[in-house]
């Protein structure tokens, strides 16, 4: 590609991002107007919630936003892998929970193992369990033709209730009062990566797990666009008949896509476990695995786009708590806005493709 055309492509991308940003802001304003909240105040209170202000300092708020972003990013990447391969997995939630469950169990069983090694084992257990959960749906599709949309939803229920039972049964805390496990020892958990000096003493919870999530963007990008497997998956997602005719191993690719997608969601589960909660409990996930689908869709099913959209969703979620505090608007409203944003983007996309055909 020559330089001018490269610049032009970058410029176009920049304009696109600008258009998305403007559209989403407009959407927020309209929603606020409908609810009779002054849009400017509401927007600024959202922004302060998500990114802080000069009074309270930016670092703490940004750290909280990134913590909310991390599980959305990883599960979103999981959706990208599966959906790009034409496997419409809805199973992120179950895979995330199973990952956290396996991580917690590994932590309990391996109490005597040196802590840094145990951290690694917990991560691997979580990724492995998530991958297995995804693989199950894959094998049902490949061997028996069961649609993954159905099987992954069912596997979600299995995982949700399995976790519910475990935290009241084998994994419940010693005190046996609440439906939760004992915390993992601090030495096993991820390190806080922001020195307290930067946040005037208040403890920013940002942990090293977020770095793993950022690294995953690169790994997934590499896999989808620079490997044979990724090419095969994308080809299969666009036209399975052509992939078959070109002798791609369709069944293997389907299984791989589901396993990798599940592994990413499982990773989201253990990272939340090791970075934020430290223990497992019944409502461990506020539906990250489901939100992941709009996140990935808003991101155009690309890894980079998904990162941006996960950040947007994370910031909205974090900022809405501040909004609720100051304006009395329920933070649930934010979910309405998130859903409306996805609908707007999907609508814009189909409008674009309609125009192309005409």
């Amino acid at each position, binding site marked *: 590609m020559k330089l001018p055309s490269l610049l032009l492509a970058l410029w176009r991308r920049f304009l696109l991002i600008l258009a998305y940003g403007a559209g989403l802001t407009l959407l927020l304003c309209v929603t606020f107007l409908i609810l009779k909240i002054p849009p400017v105040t509401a927007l600024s209170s959202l922004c302060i919630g998500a990114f802080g202000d000069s009074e309270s300092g930016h670092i703490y708020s940004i750290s909280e936003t990134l913590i909310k972003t991390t599980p959305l990013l990883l599960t979103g990447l999981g959706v990208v892998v599966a959906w790009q391969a034409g496997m419409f997995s809805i199973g992120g939630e179950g895979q995330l929970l199973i990952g956290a469950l396996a991580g917690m169990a590994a932590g309990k069983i391996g109490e005597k193992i040196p802590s840094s090694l145990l951290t690694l084992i917990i991560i691997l257990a979580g990724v492995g369990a998530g991958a297995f959960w995804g693989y199950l749906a894959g094998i049902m599709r490949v061997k028996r033709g069961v649609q993954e949309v159905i099987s992954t939803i069912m596997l979600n229920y299995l995982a949700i209730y399995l976790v519910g039972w475990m935290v009241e049964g084998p994994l419940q805390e010693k005190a046996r009062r609440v439906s939760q496990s004992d915390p993992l020892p601090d030495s096993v958990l991820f390190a806080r990566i922001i020195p307290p000096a930067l946040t005037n003493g208040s403890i920013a919870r940002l942990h090293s797990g977020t770095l793993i999530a950022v690294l995953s963007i690169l790994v997934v990008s*590499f896999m989808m666009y*620079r*490997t*044979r*497997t990724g*090419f*095969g998956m*994308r*080809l299969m997602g*666009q*036209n399975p*008949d*052509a*992939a*078959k*005719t*070109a*002798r*791609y191993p369709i069944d293997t690719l389907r299984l791989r896509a589901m396993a990798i997608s599940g592994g990413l969601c499982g990773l989201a589960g253990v990272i939340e476990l090791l970075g934020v909660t430290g223990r497992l409990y019944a409502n461990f996930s506020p539906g990250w695995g489901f939100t992941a689908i709009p996140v990935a869709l808003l991101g155009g099913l690309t890894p980079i786009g998904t990162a941006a959209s996960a950040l947007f969703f994370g910031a909205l979620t974090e900022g809405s708590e501040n909004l609720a505090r100051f304006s009395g608007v329920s933070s649930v409203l934010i979910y309405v806005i998130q859903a409306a944003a996805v609908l707007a983007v999907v609508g814009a996309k189909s409008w674009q493709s309609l125009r192309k055909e005409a």
Partner: protein
Amino acid sequence: MQKAEPDPLARMEAITKRYGTATVLRNISFDIRPGEIHALLGENGAGKSTLMHILSGLTRPDSGSISLSGIPAKIDSPREARRLGIAMVHQHFTLVPAFTVAENLTLDSPVKSIFSRFSAMKSADSALSRAHELGWNLPANALIRDLPIGTQQRVEIVKALATDAKLLIFDEPTAVLSASEIEELFGVLRKLRDAGHGIALIAHKLAEILAVADRVTVLRRGEFVASCPVGDTNASQLASWMIGNRDESSIPTKVDKLEIVSDEKQKSVSNPDSEIVFTAKQLIIRGDRGETAINDLDMEVRNGEIFGIGGVDGNGQSELAEVLVGLRSPMSGLLQWNGAEFKPGVTPVTGYIPQDRRRSGLAVTMSVRENLIFEAVREPEYRYGIMLKKRELTSLADTMATQFDIRTNGLDLPASSLSGGNQQKIVVARALHSDPDWIVAVNPTRGLDIHASLFVHSQLRAARLRGAAIVLISTDMDELTALSDRTAILSSGQLTLYDKAESSSLEVGLLLGGWKPSGNTIVGEVI
């Protein structure tokens, strides 16, 4: 010549239809009178279906006029056609498999009010009694998907009749039926004719036309060839009308001449004693629905030759092609390559030009460049370990695009932005760039204009000169004649060899029309 008769039910005059640069119908006139069965005969791509789609409102003509019972009509939708009393019985049924017979029969009936109680049985009553008049007892409460294909077709026919259509169009109705079912269907067609309906019958089997039609019109490549009462003609004449009289070069288009010249030039260079590299013995292949698609077929292909297989679509072509490239396993039979095991893709290196490029050849939403490297991505020379060599793949795609003359505004655009010809060039480029020893091409020029067709042909010839063994499966008899060293016709899962130099076009036409060779009148033995 023409008897004084009432106005025909439908008269189509000077109909012309183009798709892009290709003219699929040129100045065609056609009419259907009440109380007659008028057959439309022609090879695949002759334009029969397009002409009837125009009459039934599915397609609009570029020019020409239609009048119904003497009144000019503008038929711009199937709904309008139905209102005007025209119904089409499609080759691929338009029934809902999960609905009952009665429900399917009421699909076309008007809804009176959304509040009125709907009873499928009641609405289907008149249609069912009409079926009864034809001697059919249709199981009103059975689901369509549980019924055998012959019964489904009856439902389809009754559904067409239920709209009080006076003019019925049948698109190759016998293609899916057994011999006894065909007999029955013909009985019904005659009954309908005697009741005063006008029937247009799209067909390519000569015997069927002679058995049931009153009049026949022959089309070839979108041109009108002949029209006459069936009593005034015979199978031989119809056959020669259908495929043209190439021996006298009465219809040499520009393409034919060019091709024949270059073909003869190359023939002299070809190796006369090339060896048999591919053998198939007693090959039996099952289709997707478990039916026998290929029945006990033997074939041999030499290196440096193009073995042409002709015949009308749906006689086992696609199943045979899939077996020849290893995408389908045969039920039984022996396949060998150079006397050893036949493992297409490994030994021999295989190039495949599939029949339907949009369905199985391309991913049109991906970029042109990505579409060019489906196979290359999987070759070790384009990878370091697991990582693709992006630069090498890009330059490979660029080379292929240049070499195969793929015209595009940018290789990063989606393949859907290309014309059909350029899309096909992608498929051809992928099939041929690795210099395969074994090439299977199915209708490689269907839907292409002259230049693109010539290009594909020259690429196949170049591969032949290089020594590749090529199987060309095509419904275009001119293409087969121009390209092939040896030719055969595939009909009902059986292969019949014919010598294109010695067989007259008449004999080929008879073979195509499913007319079985009796005795030794047709030059050909089953190899």
